[in-house]
Every structure is written in C-alpha cells, then in structure tokens.
C-alpha cells in the first residue's frame, strides 16, 4: 500500500506538472507543485459472527427431577465466532450474568435458590483465555491482551454450573432461567 501511494503521487505530480507546463505557454513558469497524498487506516475490531447455530445456549431442564437440585452434568456445546479481526493490538473481555429465574422474582424460601452461576470462557484470541465466573465479585482474568493484530476464531464456552448459595439448595421452579454473556474486542491494550 505504501508503494502504491507513492506511484499515485508520482503520477499525479507528473499530471500536475504537465498542466503547469501547458499553462507556461501563456505565463511565467511555475512549479512543479508537489501534492502529498496520505492515508490512514483506522483501528477497528470485529467479533465476527456465528457461522451456524444461534447466540442462545439452551440448557433445557436444569434440575434433577428426583431431587430438585441442579444437574451435575450440564455441558452445553461451545459456540464459535468466526471472522474476528483486530487490525492492531487488542484486548478481549468476557462478562456474564448468572442465570436467574424470570418469573419467580421474590426471595426464595429457605433451602432454595433462584440463580445459577457458571463460568464463561472466550478462547482462541489470546494465549490465556478470558474467563469470567459469575459467582465471583472480581474477575481478574476476564480481560486478556495481545500485542499484535490478529484474525481468528473465538470460542465461547460455558462450564462449571452451580447453584448460587450452595449445591444443597434446590432451584425454585421457573420456566425461564436466563443469563447473558458479552464478548468484547477492543483495539489497544
């Protein structure tokens, strides 16, 4: 790109010079005039898109129907963002909210919980994946940096599901437990 711009600049300078030469027949010689041509590539990042599937991790029934406790084998299929690009150094951040009952909104009775914690991991962008645990108040590993431009897939994985408040608590019945995950790519580090 840099060479190409130089060539354009030379061509333009020649054109301008030729025009100036034509004008010189009727007036004093002026020029040559240099016309600098510059460009700027803006920094940008995109998380790309899912090439298949939806953005919803649908876990189905969360509880063991014989105990009312959270299943201990919840392991949803990962989702992959393809076409993620940052044209400069960047950071990746993952943030998540616990799954909470959307209909049962009051405080749960003793022995129950209305929330499920989990760990959201965004891997593939940085050597160390970005990890967010919804059970933690601080998540030092949620943001990871890389020092160069990069293009590649980002895999988002959910794991480590646990009942908020302790594994012996039961989940109150609710048709919709809902949580959210946000993966952010940002230029700079």
């Amino acid at each position, binding site marked *: 790109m840099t060479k190409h711009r130089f060539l354009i600049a030379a061509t333009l300078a020649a054109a301008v010079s030729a025009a100036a030469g034509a004008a010189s027949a009727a007036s004093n010689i002026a020029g040559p005039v240099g016309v600098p041509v510059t460009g700027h590539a803006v920094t940008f990042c995109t998380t790309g898109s899912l090439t298949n599937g939806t953005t919803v*991790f649908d876990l189905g029934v969360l509880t063991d129907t014989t105990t009312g406790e959270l299943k201990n084998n919840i392991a949803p299929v990962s989702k992959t963002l393809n076409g993620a690009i940052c044209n400069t150094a960047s950071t990746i951040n993952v943030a998540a909210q616990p799954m909470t009952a959307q209909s049962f909104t009051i405080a749960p009775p003793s022995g129950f919980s209305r929330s499920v914690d989990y760990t959201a991991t965004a891997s593939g962008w940085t050597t160390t994946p970005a990890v967010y645990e919804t059970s933690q108040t601080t998540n030092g590993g949620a943001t990871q940096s890389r020092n160069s431009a990069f293009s590649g897939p980002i895999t988002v994985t959910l794991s480590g599901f646990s009942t908020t408040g302790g594994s012996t608590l039961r989940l109150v019945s609710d048709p919709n437990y809902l949580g959210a995950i946000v993966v952010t790519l940002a230029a700079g580090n």
Partner: protein
Amino acid sequence: MVMKPLALAAIAAAALAAATGAQAQSPTSTANFTVTGSAPKICAISGPTLTNTNLVNIDSLDGTTLKISQLTDSTSLSTLPASAEVSFDAVCTYAHTITIQSLNNGLWRDGSTQAPQNGFADAVPWTGRLQWGSLNRTFTFGAQNRQIQSYPFAVASPNAGQLLLDISIQAGSTNAVANGPLLAGNYQDTIYVTLEPQ
C-alpha cells in the same frame, strides 16, 4: 487516481463487514449471547423413617409398615395408646398441595365391613399431625365408616426438608363405645402422603 485506492479500501471494508456481520468499523466490537434453561415443577418424597419422638407402643417400622406392639389391653380388651412420629425427606419446587389420605378412615379389622355388634368394636380411630415447612395441621380419621378419607392442605411456596407425620391412637378409642372391647383380628390402615405441584 487518488480516489481509486480509497474506493478499493471502502469496498474491502464493506466486504469485511458483510462477511463478519460487523455493523461499522469501530475500535470496539461486542458479541452477545444468552443462556437459558428451565426448572420444572417437582415434588419428591422419600421413604419413611421412624424418629424417637412420641414413640409409644410401637414395635417397628418395617419398610413402610408401622407395626404396633400391642393394640389391646389384655384386661379391658380395649385399645392401648400408641404413637409414633414418621419422617420423610421431601421437596416441592413450586406451590403445592400435600394430601394425607387414609384408605380405611381408621384402623379396621381385616374383613370387617359391618357395624360393630354386641358392644364390640372392630375399628380404631387415629389422629395425626402434619408438619411441613410452616404448615402444622392436625386431623382425625374417626373410623365411623370404612372409606377413603383425605385431608388436602395447600402450601403457597416451595419447600424442602423433613416432612413429619405424627400418628396417635388414644387409649380406649374405638368405633363403638369408649373403652369398649375390640373384636379379635388384625387391624390395619394404609396412609398415603401425596405432594403435588399446584
């Protein structure tokens, strides 16, 4: 000539945006996901266990059969007192109804379907107390008639823990006169404890 590379750049950016779903060139880009699931209405109850509370004149809890040591007084031939507390581990994840049902409405002598005769009784009433969360209710299966008798109780919220059922037979209680003699035989009742989401 100057415009051409700009145009090329714009086209490239547009193609990139189309390929990746990005809305515009920006130094920041986000991808949003949701995670969903459901917790169905569940009620579950374990088998009974015998506690040491109010344990009077009880031989054993054999599986699901509570055996009374001695139903009649050897002198009066009337009913001896007996009581027991039975515990169940239980859970309901939603508002629910708990129902105590007696198959016979008391302990009835096997094969007996007629009213007692000649001053003898052939059925023994029993009273119960149910403790389940904040619910604490008493009830009586009076043995007036041999029939199914049920007591449903509504519980407005989920509950989990020990369900306690106290079973008590009063001294001298029969389906005839108080302190009347019982006809010889095997007396029994079947109790159903049911938890059902509303």
